[in-house]
């Protein structure tokens, strides 16, 4: 099929315009698969039930924190919009193995210390929960 005979110059311009508009609409309206966190929050679980927020850090930030807990505590590093527990004085080291928290909704939990580190954002996270 000879497309140059089928479509005139104006026809091609109209098609190109519609395609560009479509691409623009897609880029503007498609949901993000990852949401950037704006705050890092540390929660301590209380022995008798309930919890309290012990630390809130606005992101981006560059900070090293030592968080005390019944099992000895843990070392938290905040690096821009990411955070990681890079050392913990608890036997199972699950919070260390969690690696970097990057997306809003990511959580690192140290059970013996009763501490939860989580990234939050006013935007909606892509997941309601991440199953380990």
């Amino acid at each position, binding site marked *: 099929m000879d497309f140059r005979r089928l*479509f005139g110059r104006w026809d091609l311009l109209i098609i190109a315009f519609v395609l560009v508009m479509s691409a623009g609409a897609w880029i503007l309206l498609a949901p993000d698969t990852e949401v950037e966190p704006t705050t890092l929050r540390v929660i301590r679980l209380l022995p008798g039930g309930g919890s309290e927020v012990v630390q809130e850090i606005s992101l981006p930030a560059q900070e090293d924190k030592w968080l005390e807990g019944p099992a000895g505590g843990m070392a938290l590093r905040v690096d821009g919009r990411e955070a990681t527990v890079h050392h913990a004085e608890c036997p199972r080291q699950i919070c260390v193995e969690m690696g970097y928290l990057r997306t809003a909704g990511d959580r690192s939990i140290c059970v013996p210390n009763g501490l939860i580190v989580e990234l939050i954002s006013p935007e909606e996270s*892509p997941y*309601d929960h*991440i*199953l*380990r």
Partner: protein
Amino acid sequence: MNRGSGIKSAYLLTLATLVLVVASVASFPGCGPQAPEEQTNLVVEDALILGTIVTIRAHAPREPDALRAEVRQVIDDMDTLGCRLSLYCEDSETARVNASAGESVEVSEEFETLLGYALEVAERSGGAFDPTVGPVVELWGFYSGDHRVPDQAEITEALRAVDYRRVELENGRVRIESDMLLDLEALIKGYIADYALERLRERDVTGALVIAGPSSIGALGEAPGGRHWWIGLEHPRDPGTTYAAVELPDGEHISTSGDYQRYFIDQEGIRRSHILDARTGWPAEEIMAATVLSDSSLGADGISTAVMPMQPDDALRLIDGWQGVEGLIIDAQRDIHATDRMDERVEMTRDGL
């Protein structure tokens, strides 16, 4: 073809493109027509129960403080029930059965249900899962945290006390033999999660997720906004990233067991998972992760644990034969195996593992 028909074709193409654009935009969440919904408030409550974090995310058309108080009550009830059953509490029913090994002990209806299910999972898994595997778990140091690789003679000796078929459960009474140790921890968190979801349903909560430990989730109703709950599955070797996601509708439960959750690396550099094959006394090593969807958290937890020591094909066959259960297995070579329906439901979020 003359010029008039060329223009007609171009405009038809343009029209079709516009229809596609409108259809695409309408398919984005929040852009299409929606039924009016009742405004709900979401609360998230965490608690330390049986040595793990339990989280409840719940939303309902009530004041946040009132909803939070209700959720806290449910969490307290979970804690009470869990403590009645679990080895974590000194005077639990499991502790009582173990302390009275060799004698028949009266137990509650809840304990009878839990143990009955554990024995069913043991039977259907051909003994790969066994609620009496405790002496071998102890040998590997998974209770104390002092991990070590025992020699085969020690394992063989410990295995003499492992046999679910020697557990007697009848008319509300349980008896284990004097050398045995009962351990239902793999199932208790799922059991109390089911209990919590029942309590939340009775309280007319619009939707809730009960997350018992990092690897078990039960869903009630819908997520805020009227959509299904959306669960990411973490990559077994790249913590903090997901490899797939799945929708969790009302009444469905999902659980993952993996060799990355509790393990140690021995002196030869071999990863030793805390999930043991109760037939051999050695850690599971053919499967890296097993994710199971079921109509209860008890089922999802129990079956995902039970299949871990199996060969991937046997694991998938067991899951496939269980009514209402779907599963996805990542084997040690990082190949993915899934039941047909699971394959249709899971959305991969990255290429390969």
